[in-house]
């Protein structure tokens, strides 16, 4: 039996089991949510004497529709709208999420089928505390979403969570001819042994004919009072001949009050540890101000200001500097 057939059987099995278990329940409610990120970007290379770019843009606009078929079966569809000069209309559109959740098939958990988050490293619960993407997303180690089937559950007493999944492996922007026939297997676990300490690890494995792809991430988060400190270590083994990559992220956050937080972040990324002077650092500093917090059916508005500097290990390359100021707002309708 081919891997594709096995995967198809898993999807069909889960779907039919869930329908059988929860058939006959009345259809439920829907909810619409929208997120918009309006950003000012100023870029300068090398010495901060002259701007190379200065522009406003709608970096991201999500439109999300959620619907509960029953108490135990729900779905989500997300489209990602963004400014793009590749499109004649000045904006692009991508399907970001499109999945169905089957709850309580596994204890304290759910089976998710469709285009969904990749449960790896920090990318799946990255809340954009910095305007910049998560390290693994930015350096294209993994995509933030992909097509697949996952089991996703909480560990009792709030002690953490785990996920297991099988995905295409190429990410949500790739489809058909851009997707190989080899599935990617993903496992993730997070433990919270004591309040404020989270330790976790993820692995993605994809075996191809001549090569393999093994991505491993370890995370540690310490949160107490106004301090929230994230750290992540990434190692990658990809391709033939095999390349070994190494990434590190540390991100301290200091809450000055419930509405204002200072954030710092340092990334290190070396896509090939055998090659000299190909690594770079990314240093970010800034603040987030929650103008209005999101609550049931009410809008949430947030201002983010970041200065970001990308510095190369190769001293012949000049650093890239960016000043980013972003207004994020999101809202949800009451269920209807």
């Amino acid at each position, binding site marked *: 039996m081919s891997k594709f057939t096995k995967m198809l059987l898993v999807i069909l099995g889960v779907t039919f089991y869930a329908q059988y278990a929860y058939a006959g*329940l*009345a*259809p*439920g*409610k829907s909810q619409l949510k929208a997120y918009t990120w309006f950003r000012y970007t*100023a870029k*300068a290379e090398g010495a*901060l*004497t*002259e*701007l190379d770019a200065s522009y406003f843009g709608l970096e991201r606009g999500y439109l999300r529709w959620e619907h*509960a078929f*029953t*108490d135990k079966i729900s779905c989500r569809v997300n489209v990602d709208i963004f400014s793009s000069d590749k499109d004649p209309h000045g904006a692009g559109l991508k399907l970001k999420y499109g999945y169905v959740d089957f709850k309580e098939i596994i204890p*304290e958990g759910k089976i998710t089928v469709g285009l969904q988050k990749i449960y790896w490293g920090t990318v799946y619960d990255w809340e954009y505390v910095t305007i910049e993407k998560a390290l693994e997303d930015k350096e294209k180690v993994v995509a933030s979403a992909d097509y697949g089937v996952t089991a996703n559950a*909480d*560990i*009792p*007493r*709030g*002690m*953490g*969570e785990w996920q297991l999944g099988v995905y295409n492996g190429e990410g949500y922007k790739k489809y058909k001819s851009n997707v190989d026939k080899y599935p990617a297997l993903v496992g993730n676990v*997070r433990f*919270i042994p*004591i*309040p*404020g300490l*989270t330790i976790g690890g993820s692995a993605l494995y994809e075996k191809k004919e001549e090569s393999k792809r093994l991505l491993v991430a370890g995370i540690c*988060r*310490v*949160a*107490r*009072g106004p301090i*929230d400190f994230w750290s992540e270590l990434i190692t990658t083994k990809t391709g033939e001949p095999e390349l070994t990559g190494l990434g590190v992220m540390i991100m301290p956050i200091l*809450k000055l*009050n*419930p*509405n*204002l937080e200072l954030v710092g972040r340092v990334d290190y990324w070396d896509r090939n540890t055998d090659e000299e002077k190909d690594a770079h650092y990314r240093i970010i500093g800034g*603040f987030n*101000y929650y*103008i209005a*917090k999101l*609550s*049931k059916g009410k809008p949430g508005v947030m*201002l983010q*200001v970041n200065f970001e500097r990308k510095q190369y290990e190769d001293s012949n390359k000049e650093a890239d500097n960016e*000043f980013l*100021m972003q207004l994020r707002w999101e809202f949800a309708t009451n*269920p209807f």
Partner: protein
Amino acid sequence: MKMWGTKIMYAAIIVALIAAQMVTPEMAFAGGRTLVLTGSTTVLPIAQLCAEKFMDQHPDVNISVRGGGSGVGIAALIDGTCDIAMASRPMKTKELKSARGKGINPLATVIAKDGIAIIVHPSNPLSEITLAQLKDIYTGKISNWKDVGGKPGKIVVISRDVASGTFEVFKKIVLKGAKTRADALMLASNKAVATTVEKTPGAIGYVGLGYISSKVKALAVDGVEPTKETVVSGKYKLARPLYLYTDGKPTGLAKEFIDFVLSPEGQKIVDKIGFVPVKPTSE
């Protein structure tokens, strides 16, 4: 450099504007101590009356009490926007996980017990209902009063919204996890449910014991009247504890306030407004 200087100046102006916005009503209570409670609308009347009494005795204290539902209160505790979360249900695993991840260690103090009373319009001749009939009404299998021994007529089903702890407890005990019928009116507070039932002859709803009044009729469930006595004895099945959640063991003003709620004076208030005390009401 000039252009970057301008950008930095703009950033400084924004920071200054933000700083000006940062003064919250709680901060404006200059020199005094403040406490913020958010959450369950069932616990709300207990917290409000206790807060009034407590502030009378402590003029330097300002206590802000807000509703929204148990889910909203727990989210506020996790988010650090309240000192005490009021809840009419225990925290869910997902909420516990989120709290622990952010360094919050939720600790529950039971301050009262409550029964969930099934109420109908006073003109409804029915005086009793079973848990099985309730489930059938709320899941959509029964839609006419004649099917439960009442006068023929459409049943108008009133429920609480999903942020409500009362809803969670009702769902667990009555619906056994099944979904509420799609045409049920989902309301945001006990008061809204009581008022709607009071004005709608064919309506059925559920509220905390403290919201029973002469304007609505409370039904016996499985032959047991919803009273403090039947809740204490355990005969009335639709009952639950009411909680105040704090981050770790309560300290400072939060401890003083919770101690007051559990004191004979506080428990008298619990008793007076129709809930069941968990501590003695006299010295």
